[in-house]
């Protein structure tokens, strides 16, 4: 029993949110008569949400550092239109247009970062101003017109991995990608285990590692199968590839590097960080600047997907990105949150959107449900924290052994919205990991 608790509450706690997502997918899959997990739908899901998830990566860092960025939608739109114009009118080749797009993002980020970090203006105000400023700039520069982009950009926003090699009946590159991911998981876990043993830390039993790998590997393998068996011409989407590369990069940076540690330190207690020698202003500047670069990336992906840059691109994106981050377990006061959590939070919203749409639920009702999910997820987190309770999985397991007065909170929160039920335990789990 103790060991069972360990996998759930300990190592696998960070995957609790993943279980939530799986439950949500399973629910909709059954209710839609098996449509959710078809190649066409999963590609659609990934294509249609990856730019929001790219924003969520930047946003979680901003929120961990104790700020917020409301300007991301406008920045994406402005960077996108500058790129479209540069390629169509100024003779930029597509690759230079992409670089220009990112450079515009970096410049805007430096501008906003300066005001937040060095002038000490709250991020909320600076980016609220940026939201208006760059929306206006987009419409000013583009004369409120829609400007098309060439195929190369469209490939980045809506393309698929090409067919190469022998005809196996599957998309070969997608298969290779899936295999690499699985291999990486296995080798990574085993090496981490070895290193922990060398350092004299806690070493988990092999079967636990194996169970975890089997589970994750299974998910990866099945996804690979789905993506590799789509209708001809489709496979793993390029935006998905960009997204996953960024997720890996930023998970590593936030979790394992000094810069990442400093972001958490600044958000957790700015004064203590400063007295520990952290360049708190520099970190804030970097985080704000990074957000705008990622916003430009998201703008680029969206423009590619919709084949043109328009005056209303990126409208309300900031809200979706912020929701994803909070569902993913970040704290409004800063210092808490993970990239993975936010991505999964974003997927929870995406699957909810997609599933409800497939069930024929109207957009009005979908909004209502999404609003409730966000509120309940965060409320559960906050209540859980103020009462100093362990994760919900911990509570359930503890209760089964007959201990404690704990389940009151769990039962109080769950009946309010059935769709929100699964959302909240994962939130909690991701936050504590």
């Amino acid at each position: 029993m103790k060991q069972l608790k360990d996998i759930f509450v300990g190592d696998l706690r960070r995957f609790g949110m993943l279980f939530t997502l799986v439950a949500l997918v399973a629910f909709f899959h059954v209710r839609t008569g098996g449509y959710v997990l078809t190649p066409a739908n999963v590609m659609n899901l990934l294509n249609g949400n990856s730019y929001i998830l790219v924003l969520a990566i930047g946003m979680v860092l901003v929120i961990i550092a104790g700020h917020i960025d409301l300007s991301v939608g406008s920045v994406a739109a402005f960077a996108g239109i500058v790129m479209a114009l540069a390629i169509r009118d100024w003779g930029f080749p597509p690759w230079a247009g992409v670089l220009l797009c990112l450079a515009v993002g970096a410049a805007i980020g430096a501008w906003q970062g300066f005001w937040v970090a060095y002038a000490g203006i709250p991020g909320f105000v600076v980016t609220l101003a940026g939201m208006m400023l760059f929306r206006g700039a987009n419409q000013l520069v583009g004369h409120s017109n829609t400007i098309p982009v060439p195929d190369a950009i469209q490939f980045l926003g809506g393309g698929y991995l090409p067919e190469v090699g022998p005809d196996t009946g599957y998309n070969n590159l997608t298969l290779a990608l899936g295999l690499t991911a699985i291999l990486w998981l296995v080798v990574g876990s085993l090496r981490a285990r070895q290193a922990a043993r060398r350092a004299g830390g806690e070493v988990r039993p092999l079967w636990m590692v194996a169970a975890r790998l089997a589970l994750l590997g299974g998910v990866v393998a099945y996804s690979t199968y789905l993506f590799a068996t789509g209708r001809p011409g489709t496979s793993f989407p390029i935006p998905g590839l960009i997204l996953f590369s960024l997720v890996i990069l930023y998970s590593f940076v936030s979790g394992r590097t000094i810069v990442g540690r400093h972001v958490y330190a600044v958000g957790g207690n700015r004064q203590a960080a400063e007295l520990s020698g952290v360049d708190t202003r520099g970190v804030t500047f970097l985080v704000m600047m990074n957000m705008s670069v990622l916003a430009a990336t998201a703008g680029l992906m969206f423009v590619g997907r919709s084949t043109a840059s328009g005056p209303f691109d990126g409208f309300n994106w900031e809200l979706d990105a912020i929701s994803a981050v909070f569902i993913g377990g970040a704290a409004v006061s800063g210092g808490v949150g993970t990239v993975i959590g936010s991505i999964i939070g974003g997927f929870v919203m995406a699957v909810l959107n997609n599933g409800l749409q497939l069930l024929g639920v109207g957009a009005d009702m979908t909004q209502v449900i999404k609003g409730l999910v966000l509120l309940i997820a965060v409320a559960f987190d906050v209540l859980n924290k103020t009462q100093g309770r362990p994760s919900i999985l911990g509570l359930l397991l503890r209760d089964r052994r007959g201990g404690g007065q704990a389940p009151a909170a769990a039962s109080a929160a769950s009946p309010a919205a059935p769709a929100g039920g699964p959302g909240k335990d994962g939130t909690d789990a991701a936050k504590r990991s």
Partner: protein
Amino acid sequence: MATFLEMRDITKEFPGVKALDRVSMTVEQGEIHAICGENGAGKSTLMKVLSGVYPFGSYSGEILYKGGPAAFRDIRASERAGIAIIHQELALVPELSITENLFLGNEVARRGVIDWVAAKARARALMARVGLDEDPGTAIGTIGVGKQQLVEIAKALNKNVELLILDEPTAALNEEDSAHLLDLMRDLRGRGITCIMISHKLNEIRAIADAITILRDGQSVETLRVDAGLDEDRIIRGMVGRSLGSRYPERHPAVGDVFFEVRDWTVRHPQIPDRLVCKGSNFFVRRGEIVGFAGLMGSGRTELARSLFGRSYGLFVRGSILKDGRELRLRRVADAILEGIAYVTEDRKTLGLNLLDDIKTTIVSADLDRVSRHSVIDPNREFSVAESFHRLLNIKTRTVDEGVSKLSGGNQQKVVLAKWLYTEPDLLILDEPTRGIDVGAKYEIYGIINKLAESGKGVVVISSELPEVLGISDRIYAICEGAITGALDRAEASQEKLMKLMTLTGAGGRPADKPGQQSGSVR
């Protein structure tokens, strides 16, 4: 007459921990009853049970108050019954005036409209009762901690308090304010108000309390009546369950040459122009030496330390820092750390720790480079570093993955110490290193300080507790109003001499540390 307050077999459990285990105590009407115990002994928990912070039903056992059973559902219920609790962290709104704070939640109003004239008049009356001489319109944030405490007490008096609970009331106060507060408590006792006070300061307890209840590990050990025969060692024995041979570990100083020197250090207040917080301070530290800085609250000791530590406070005016004869340029905290200077803050929770972090993250946080390669942190090195300090400093925790917010004050302080020891400093500045921690942990921390000095490092200990400064330092500087007013050797120093120097006002700018004026001379 029936007993005023009796708590019987109070047991309070948190998930996994029994914070209180069948604790009982009785308090007579009109007495000052002290509660002592090491940190984590359950003192605050017991008081939270009494005042309804932990509602009736969340604990077992019974409370008899004024002859009848009491079942407080929340703080308001206990307040209605005349119980007021003043927490260590004061619950005042800094931007609001004294008057507004006094009546916050209890406004002097008619039909929702505040009657400011009446409110001010009542505020004055209440302030007079606690001996607070300020304009009632002054913002709370601009008066000192000692006065803020008086406002809290006045606020309780306004609610017709019969039982006043004070959680470490003098922990943040200087000697003068403490004395005033103790006088006020005597005065309240004279008016029939019963006080329960949690305190670590045994001399105060002996001076003021009528009875002492000692808690240890969540259990009530004993209740002692205070009389002439009760000495501090007797109380300590009850608290730690053993007898501490001495309050300060034995030390064999091996003092070397001067290696760190500060000259004419002058710093301006960050907000108020023309106000100097450090006035031409000169001092030095020798290798292997423990140098005490004795100063009252607001004397500029923390400002001095923090401005030296990479200018993390105030605006630099002039002065120089020399280490091994070389002048240091410390513009940022990172520079100071790099040059082997470490500063342990007096304010653990707001300046010293990120309470969201776990122990291992905290310990390596001031020197991440050493657990990283190419700026990538190696979690296993991080773990083994933390583990070694866990053992070395005897941090009481099951694992270094535990969050620092879950530790007791003494263990948090050890984690902060570990964090700075890990930077391997040559000069360690400790600002109130034992504030708010229990006797046992204090002794351990003194031991750590001694070991550091023995290994040839310089240690500066800033403290407002004179016995502590006298007990551990080799040489002591007194500081007052931003200026160093004198230096004394351990042998010649006494509480009286120090206090005189610490209150030597109007000495601003005087280079107090001239060669020959004290035992050691600047080269």
